[in-house]
């Protein structure tokens, strides 16, 4: 699905970055993907592997750090982590008003490049 456009954004950003620092080969790029970001990591890697052909990222591996969904309950103030992609209730008090504090990320962190 839209993993292709996200893969394309990643590629655009890292290629531009490489132009700036004048490097000619990318070995890997590390990104952070929240569990609730709506992105399917496998599909993203698959898409990236297709579109990287014929660029200096041709050999680059896309490494994804997954971030679990975490939230703070508005009612009891406790924070908690969910294994799911969504939270319905606070596991402590059962109320369903909470602030999501992690799990929506979709960021590039770093890349590993060959020096000249």
């Amino acid at each position: 699905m839209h993993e292709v456009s996200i893969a394309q954004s990643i590629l655009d950003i890292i290629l531009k970055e490489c132009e700036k620092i004048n490097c000619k080969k990318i070995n890997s790029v590390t990104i952070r993907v929240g569990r609730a970001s709506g992105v399917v990591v496998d599909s993203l890697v698959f898409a990236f592997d297709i579109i990287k052909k014929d660029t200096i990222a041709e050999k680059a591996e896309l490494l994804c750090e997954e971030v679990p969904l975490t939230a703070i309950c508005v009612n009891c103030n406790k924070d908690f982590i969910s294994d799911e992609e969504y939270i319905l209730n606070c596991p402590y008090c059962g109320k369903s008003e909470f602030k999501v504090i992690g799990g929506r990320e979709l960021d590039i962190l770093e890349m590993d490049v060959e020096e000249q």
Partner: protein
Amino acid sequence: MKVKVISRILEANDRIAEDNRRLFNEKGIYVINLMSGPGAGKTSLLVKTIEALKDSVSIGVIEGDITGTEDAERIHSTGVPVVQINTGGACHLDANMIEEVLPELPLDSIQLLFIENVGNLVCPAEFNVGEDIKVMLLSVTEGEDKPLKYPLMFQESAALVLNKVDLLPYLDLDMERLKERAMSLNPKLKVFELSCKTGSGLDAWTDYLFRMVAEKNR
């Protein structure tokens, strides 16, 4: 050699969305990004909404679809300005696509702009286009499990329109359960139950739109 590249992946999209938003604010246009799965009734809702509001609010529409112009023609026949975007396969509209067609709309005379997104429950929620609110449309024929399967969509939306309530007598849908699940994902969600076929429930929806437009222009 490791190089830090701290950057939001959707940064480019968000930047353009901000440009769009600035323009909308300048012109006082209230913008709704309307999202749903295919066939839930987005175009039907727009046609009904335009019919109800067009004497009191000036409306414009951007139609997003993978291909075709049928929807734009349906809107065109109501008499409001409409532009069609064919994404050519992409499953959502992004901020750039919107920016490109804005010059084709008479922005100075539009107070309420609807953007009908591509029919898809997953992707559109992630791509801001500069809208004031996202509205999710769900047809009651789609079942009560949708909030669990597409949580982001429910969490990002300010309003949820439950369409095709005329079909409820033929379904086993547990409406209360559906609403409960939606509300627990997003307690601030405004829920409208209506039928584009019979027109029932439309008033509450159009009143809400009228208020939002008035507030933006105050």
